[in-house]
């Protein structure tokens, strides 16, 4: 048996219900939207500043 590893964990950023995932409540939807806004704020900060140059120069040799 592998080392003790917690098998079911609550996700860090939102609470998880036991039932069908379709039962998102109004408040959960709102908190996801707020999460998304602050996530986008962060991305605005950390995204490569010259996106075109970055994307153009990202070339890989074919692997397997």
């Amino acid at each position, binding site marked *: 048996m592998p080392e003790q590893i917690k098998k079911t964990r609550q996700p860090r950023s939102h609470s998880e219900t036991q039932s069908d995932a379709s039962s998102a409540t109004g408040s959960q939807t709102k908190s996801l939207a707020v999460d998304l806004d602050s996530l986008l704020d962060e991305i605005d900060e950390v995204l490569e500043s010259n996106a075109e140059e*970055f994307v153009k120069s990202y070339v890989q040799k074919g692997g397997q």
Partner: protein
Amino acid sequence: MCGIETEYGIIFKGGDVNPITASSIIVNAFSQGVHDSVGWDFIDEHPGSDARGFSLDDYLFPEFESQLVNTVLTNGARYYVDHAHPEISTPECRTALETVLFDRAGEEIVRRSMQIANEGLPFESEIVLYKNNSDGKGNSYGCHENYLVSRTTPFAQIAQQITTHFVSRQIFCGAGKVGVEHRGIAAKGNSSPWFQLSQRADFFEEEIGLETTLKRPIVNTRDEPHCDPVKYRRLHVIAGDANMSEVATFLKVGTTAIVLAMIEDDEFPEHLVISDPVSAVRQISHDYSLQTAVVMSDGRRLTALQIQFELYEAAVQYAARYGLEAVDQSVGQDVLLRWQHVLLGLKSDPMSVANVVDWVAKLRIVEGFTLRHGLQHDDARLKAIDLQYHDMRVDKCLALRAGLEVLCETDEVLRSMSQPPSSTRAFFRGTVLQRWPHAVIAANWDSVVFDIDNEGLKRVPMPEPLRGTKVLVGELLAMCQTPADLLARIGSQF
């Protein structure tokens, strides 16, 4: 038993260094930071390339570029340069959960390598690695899974049936991609999707075959078991994306292991075969609304979600009849629960599983960004987000900010960078490497070569992947002071 090999994308910023050299710098950096590394043993060619003690000056010598670096680590993993990419292969793992743990350890090994390597580079230079599979310019590199299966199951049967799962599982395993490639064979009726489910779908051109670098097949026929070839087959799977989400990795490996167990017990639903898998894998990838149906061999048209629901239901029946000991009972039950949860989520509202499915997390970011900045779908920033989702720098990685659910405790991940799994032969390999690094000349999957004072080279063959475990050899190893001692006592442990 399973494992994952991941080829990382690599960029050398602020300099003109070829990717083989850059990859070698990365792999060597880790070994330099830890201890003298042990070379990988290519039995047929040379006894083992020595990756000890390279300094940055060595990289300027032209002959260095032809020396492909290959190391084996004390957690039993293999870390090497392959086709101009750094590649890390987890040790053999007993369960899907253990595989996630060692895949995560691999990520931390890569991060530490970057940190050490970059400290040694000039200020304006930096090597960055990406855990993805596509550069958006027609080049792809792989994340391969390996599964131990019984040799008694006819390969043709494995191939046909597992293809159904490979083609459809991308709805929860896909890492997402902005744009498509190979436009000439784009899916009918979906002329130029700006986003697709999978990084790799556009690159599969055959149903089955030996190739891995061009005309890639959905099922790879490579037959190199690295263990007893009479009893076992190693199914080498190239048809998957690298995942940043731990739950996605868990489901990718866990569901595949269960489906393979079903195939081995002849319990795979026989009718669930896709008529044209090569077209289907692309059609499914190109429709992130998940509505596209593909033709099955019995004439039905099913969406990938419907196919996966049928597979899931069959797996539940299988588990009830046979149990899931083949994949570890409790891990297997967890796989089934999470499989159900993700399918139900995808069915009702894909955004509800943005915390476990990489393509959904990525789409959420890309759509949100498009709305916020009023962008067109072909804006370079969206492709930049796609790439940076997989950036291995902690301060830049977008996946780390996306709110993905975590399965592994940090201290377990850190420990697994240097400690092997207990219940496969990786335990023996990793442990002897830790204890006697100077006596182990070389190692590979199915043997370890010792250099014993006064006795010369001794190869210990390990044809059984489930022997050499902590239970079987732990005490013996602890008792032995020297490798000579160990070899005298080993007897028939393997």
